[in-house]
């Protein structure tokens, strides 16, 4: 039974991976990645990693993929065909991939580890359960856990800074006319930056009006 499940899940994962690379429409690529992630979660379950499988489905296939779908819907457009005009690299890529695969197989399967041919060591009843993962995170791996939370905070702030609207709702103002993104932006933000008033253009309108009044000598 486990063998059948393994082959079904592995074929699903590999087919999903090929779909991500081969499909031209980015939207269908994202859907192929969702299928790939779900198959991978089944493989995790076969390896007795219950919590990681659940996190994979909820966090990855749920939240992160929704983010991708939103950005694809916002940007849209199709990719140019694979192997079209451009640098000669695409011709070499399959060769590189095959070489990498052979190399990885030699590195892992040829490593001489005896346990690779076994089904794995014995494990205690709670192996991979949320209780064990939580205990490890709060005892042996407390520092990586805290560092990961800081990393998430930094990434969230960075994402907002990168993607925020700078000049309000005027579409032409966004067009290459805005100031470039710089680290210095972080240090000279006024009190209104990042508020809803800025994104609706209220702040910019007021600045324009004030500079006009100054020019007219009020």
């Amino acid at each position: 039974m486990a063998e059948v499940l393994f082959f079904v899940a592995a074929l699903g994962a590999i087919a999903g991976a090929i779909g991500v690379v081969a499909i031209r429409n980015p939207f269908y690529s994202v859907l192929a990645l969702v299928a790939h992630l779900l198959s991978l979660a089944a493989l995790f379950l076969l390896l007795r990693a219950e919590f990681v499988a659940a996190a994979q489905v909820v966090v990855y296939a749920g939240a992160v993929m929704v983010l991708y779908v939103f950005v694809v819907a916002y940007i849209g457009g199709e990719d140019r065909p694979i192997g079209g005009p451009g640098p000669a690299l695409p011709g070499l890529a399959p060769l590189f991939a095959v070489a990498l695969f052979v190399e990885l197989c030699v590195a892992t399967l040829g490593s001489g580890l005896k346990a690779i041919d076994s089904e794995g060591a014995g494990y205690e009843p709670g192996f991979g359960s949320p209780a064990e993962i939580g205990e490890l995170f709060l005892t042996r791996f407390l520092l990586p856990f805290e560092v990961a939370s800081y990393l998430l905070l930094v990434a969230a702030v960075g994402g907002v800074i990168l993607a925020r609207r700078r000049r309000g709702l005027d579409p032409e103002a966004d067009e290459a006319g805005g100031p470039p993104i710089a680290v210095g932006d972080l240090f000279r933000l006024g009190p209104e930056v990042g508020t809803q008033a800025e994104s609706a253009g209220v702040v910019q309108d007021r600045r324009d009006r004030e500079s006009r009044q100054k020019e007219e000598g009020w």
Partner: protein
Amino acid sequence: MAIGWYLAVSALIFSIGAAGVLVRRNPLVILLCLELMLNAANLALIAFARMHGSGDGQIFALIVMVVAACEVTIGLGLIVAIHRRRLPIDVDELRELRG
């Protein structure tokens, strides 16, 4: 199933992802291929955790998922910023830094 089978699947997915990074030109799809490579690494980590019967590899896999989420946030933020400036969404065109 022997652990070696999982490692072979992981190696195959990693190679497919690496080929995708080289072949595709849309930065969005390149990010998707990076996800493939990170997930292949996760599969190998969890297979080794099963091999040793200890939970450390699973912790490592969870941390990799956190890093992947951060990478997605920043990458998608960059892509949205590129789109806002009406630049082409194509890594071959975006080579201003190449000199």
